[in-house]
C-alpha cells in the first residue's frame, strides 16, 4: 500500500513541475508580425492600422470562452473606437460555415478576419484559444493574454487605456 502512495506522489510532483512551465506567449515577440487577411468586405492588413491601438484576438466558433469574449470586445470597441482603437478578431475555423453562424449570433461591430490555415496564428505563436495581443500605435505588442478570463477584463481594459498617449 505504501508503495502505491509513494508512486502516486512522485507522479503528482512530476506533473506539477511540468505544469509550472505552462504555455506562455513568447516574450521575445516585440513587433507585431504583419498580416493581410480577408474579411467579409475586402482585406485587412496590420500596416493599414499603424497609428491606432489594435487589439488582435485569435478565436474560433468551437472555443467556448470566445462566446464570452465577443460581447466584452463589442463593449470595449464601442467605448474606445473614437480614440483610434481597432479590434481585429482573427478566425481560425477550418469550416467557414461554423464561423459564419457564430458571427451571425454575436453580430460584432469590429473587424473579423479569416485565417483558416493558421499562418498568422503561427506567426504570433498563439498558445491557447483564444489569445489576444494589444498592439500600440508604433506596431509593438505591449500586452498579451492566453485564454479569456471574465474576471480579468478590467485589467485588460486598463491595458488598452494605457496604450493611448496621454
Amino acid at each position: 500500500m505504501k508503495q502505491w502512495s509513494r508512486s502516486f506522489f512522485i507522479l503528482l510532483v512530476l506533473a506539477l513541475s511540468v505544469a509550472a512551465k505552462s504555455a506562455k506567449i513568447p516574450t521575445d515577440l516585440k513587433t507585431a508580425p504583419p498580416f493581410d487577411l480577408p474579411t467579409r468586405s475586402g482585406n485587412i492588413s496590420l500596416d493599414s492600422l499603424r497609428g491606432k491601438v489594435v487589439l488582435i484576438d485569435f478565436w474560433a466558433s468551437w472555443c467556448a470562452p470566445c462566446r464570452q469574449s465577443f460581447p466584452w470586445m463589442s463593449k470595449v470597441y464601442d467605448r474606445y473606437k473614437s480614440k483610434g482603437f481597432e479590434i481585429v478578431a482573427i478566425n481560425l475555423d477550418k469550416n467557414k460555415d461554423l464561423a459564419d453562424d457564430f458571427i451571425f449570433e454575436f453580430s460584432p461591430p469590429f473587424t473579423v478576419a479569416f485565417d483558416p490555415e493558421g499562418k498568422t496564428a503561427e506567426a504570433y505563436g498563439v498558445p491557447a484559444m483564444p489569445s489576444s495581443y494589444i498592439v500600440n500605435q508604433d506596431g509593438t505588442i505591449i500586452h498579451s493574454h492566453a485564454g479569456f478570463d471574465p474576471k480579468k477584463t478590467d485589467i485588460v481594459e486598463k491595458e488598452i487605456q494605457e496604450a493611448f498617449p496621454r
Partner: protein
Amino acid sequence: MQLDSSTQSSSIRQKLSRTALALALLEVPATAHADSGPTTQFDITTLFYGEQSRTDIFEPMVRVSRLFPDGQSLYAQFGLDVVTGASPSGALPSGEIQTTTGSSGRILTIPAGAIPMMNFQDQRFGFDGDWHKSLSRFFTSDIGGHFSRERDYQSLGINGKMSVDLFRRLTTLTFGGGYNHDSVFPTGGTPAGLSDGTIISNQGNPKQVKNFMIGISQVLSRKWLFGFDFSRTFENGYLTEPYKVISIVDPVTGIPVSQLTDKRPDARDRTSLLFSSAYHLSRDVVYLYYRHYWDTWKLQSDTFDFKYRHELGSENGTYLEPHIRYYHQTPAEFFTVGLVEGDPLPEFATADTRLGLLKTMTLGTTLGFHIFDNPSLWTIRAEYIRQIGDSYPVNAVGIQQTFDLSPPLNTFAVVVGYSFNF
C-alpha cells in the same frame, strides 16, 4: 491542412453547438464557460432488462447537473432499481425433481436436469453526487459521494480526483481515490461459510473498499484522443455471497447429496488497465476500449468494446451508434462447480458462475435524435447480450457430466434516455 466542410449550418446546429459547449464543461478540464448565468441539465434514463427465464430489471435514473459560468459544476444522480426473477443458486442438477430449503429459508423446487434457481425480489435506491471545480488555470478537482441501499446491502462512499493539464493541454493527468464503507445484512441472518447454513449472526457485516486511480489522456492528433487508466481496488470484510450454495455430490453417481454455503476470502485486491481511444473520421467517431483485469482471487478478464458513432446527416443531428462488446473471464482460484463427498473441504469455495469461466458477447445499437427543432436529445438503445460459461467442466462427476452446467444465457436490454437543459 484541408478540411472537407462536412457539417451544415442551421439554427438547430447553433442550438446544438451551444448545448454541446455548455455540456463540454462536464468533460473538459479547461474552464469552458456557459453563456451567462448557470444552466441546469436533466438526464433521464430508464433501463428495461430481461434475461431469458431469469431476472428482470427495471431501472429509472435521473441526473440533475448545474453548470456555472466560472466552470464549476454540480450533479446529483438518483437511481431506482427494481429487480425480480431467478438466478442460479449454485447447486447442481440432480436428474430428478427436487425440493429443498435454501440457506435463507426459501423453498426451492427444481425440475430434473435444470440448473437449480432461486427466486428473489429486491429494490435498490442509489444516490451519487459530484462537485467539479477549477483550482487554477491547469488544475481541476472533483469531490463526490455515493449512497445506496437495498434490502440486504448498504453502501456509503466518498471519492475525489484531481486533474492537471500539461503540454498546452494535450495531456491530462488524473489522480483519483475513493473510500466506500459497505454493510451486508443478509435476509434471515448471516450463515456460516461452507456449512449447512447455520445462522451465526443477525448483525450487519462490514466491508471496506479503497480505490486508487491514475489516468493519462493524450491528444495524439487533431482527430485522435487516447487514454490509459490504471486502477487498484482493495476490498476487505464480508465478500461472500450469503445466498449461494455449493452441491456435494456422490463420488460415483454425481447425484447431489447435500449442499454447503458459499465461502470466499475476506480480502480481494483488484487491478485494472484500461486503454481507451476516440478517433474522429470525417463526420463519424470510432470508440475503442480494451480493459485487462486481474485480482488476488486469481480471476482474470479481458474486455473489448467497440462503438461506431455514425452521423446520419439530417438537420436534426440524428446518429446511429452500433456497439460490440466481447468479454472473457477465467475462473477464480476457489471456483468449483461442486464438491465431492468424502473429499477434504477446501478453505474457500464458490459455485457462483459469475466467478467461473465466462464469455459475454454483446451486440447493440443506439439511436440518438432530436424531435424537430428541439435541442433536447432522445436516445434509444437496444442490446442483445449472450453469456456462455463452462458447460461441461473437466471435474464434473457422474451424472453431472451429462448436464449442461452453464447453459447460454440470452439477455435483452432496452434503454430509453432523454436529456434536456434550461
